[in-house]
């Protein structure tokens, strides 16, 4: 009897531990990674990816449809090749869609927004998005702003 209480309570502790791990996996963290079976891969070349990182979301009209799988450099063109993994259920993205790197909020992290095109053919596994827009770097914009305002001031001086 005593022994049974011990074993049952240890078993309950272990079950509680594994349940808690499941909660951590599915409720607290984003373990809903896409498997090879229910997703397909699309690549896109960008001039500049800014602060984009692997696992950043890919969205259409603000709805998340996939995530960035990997980023590496094209050695000939010096462009960034971004591999996107998109859910199979969203397999009706036109081939002339464009991929843009945008920033969530003013200082948020970067993600990829796909703007759908009008082509009747759809993106397939390993196809490539040709229309891309690079990340807008806030630092560059500020730099340009300062540069422009200086230019405007200079003629006044002379």
């Amino acid at each position, binding site marked *: 009897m005593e022994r049974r209480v*011990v074993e049952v309570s240890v078993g309950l502790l272990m079950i509680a531990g594994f349940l808690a791990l499941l909660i*951590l996996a599915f409720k607290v963290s984003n*373990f809903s990674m896409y498997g090879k079976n229910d997703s397909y891969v699309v690549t896109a070349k960008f001039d500049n990816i800014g602060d984009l990182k692997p696992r950043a979301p890919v969205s259409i009209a603000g709805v998340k449809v996939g995530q960035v799988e990997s980023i590496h450099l094209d050695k000939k063109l010096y462009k960034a090749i971004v591999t996107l993994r998109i859910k199979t259920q969203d397999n009706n993205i036109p081939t002339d869609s464009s991929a843009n790197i945008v920033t969530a909020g003013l200082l948020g992290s970067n993600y990829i927004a796909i703007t759908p095109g009008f082509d009747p053919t759809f993106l397939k596994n390993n196809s490539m998005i040709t229309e891309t827009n690079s990340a807008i770097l806030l630092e560059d914009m500020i730099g340009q702003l300062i540069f422009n305002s200086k230019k405007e001031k200079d003629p006044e001086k002379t």
Partner: protein
Amino acid sequence: MIIGSVQGLGRVGLRFFNQLGESGLFLLKTVFQKPRLIKATPLLIQEIFFVGVFSLPIMLVASLFIGMVVGLQGFNILSQFSATGELGQLVALSVVRELGPVVGALLFAGRAGSALTAEIGLMKTTEQLASMEMMGVDPLWRVVAPRFWAGVISLPLLTIIFCVVAVFGGDLIGVEWLGIDGGAFWSNMQASVDFHNDVLNGVIKSAVFGALITWIAVYQGYATEPTASGISRATTRTVVYSSLTVLGMDFVLTAIMMGGW
């Protein structure tokens, strides 16, 4: 005078490394044994019961309060930037990465480590370990190894439960009491907490802490001076050493994990 102080330093150093080596050999002898699973399993379950199940209430209470405090503190700071929606991220990341493993380990050292040392120390003082050896039973196998493995298994389980309860404590304060939007709380949390980099690394940390704490506890118990005051000193040393080791190791592990390992 100078030579005397140098000699004192040398003696301290020698004693430190002597003990380190002795405890290392002790651990090796405990871990590398002929596996006797059928006989050892009931012993192990018994020890998990004492070490793990009995530590559960203190862990639950502590984790609930820690989650609530982090939620409250975070809310006060984040509301200055009108970013209270990020509270879920703050609570979950701080608990899963640091507070869960470290505070859980400190509680475990106080609750379970001290008990292990006192138990084994008393066994040694009353010569139970020696009589076991006389009967041809290896006390390392019969007494030390089940307690060691019980600690290594229980602490990660307890830490995972700790993290979940603390996150719900944060939810209780943030969403139920302070009125943050529940959807923002949970979705920001899910967007920022990564299973591999945050959750699994936290679990790895707690497994390392569990091994360190029980190693220190069983060694201190086994090497006790066989007197009443010896047991009390060994118990104190267990809590002090294991708490400091946990905090130091936490820094090292965090540095390794943050360094893209």
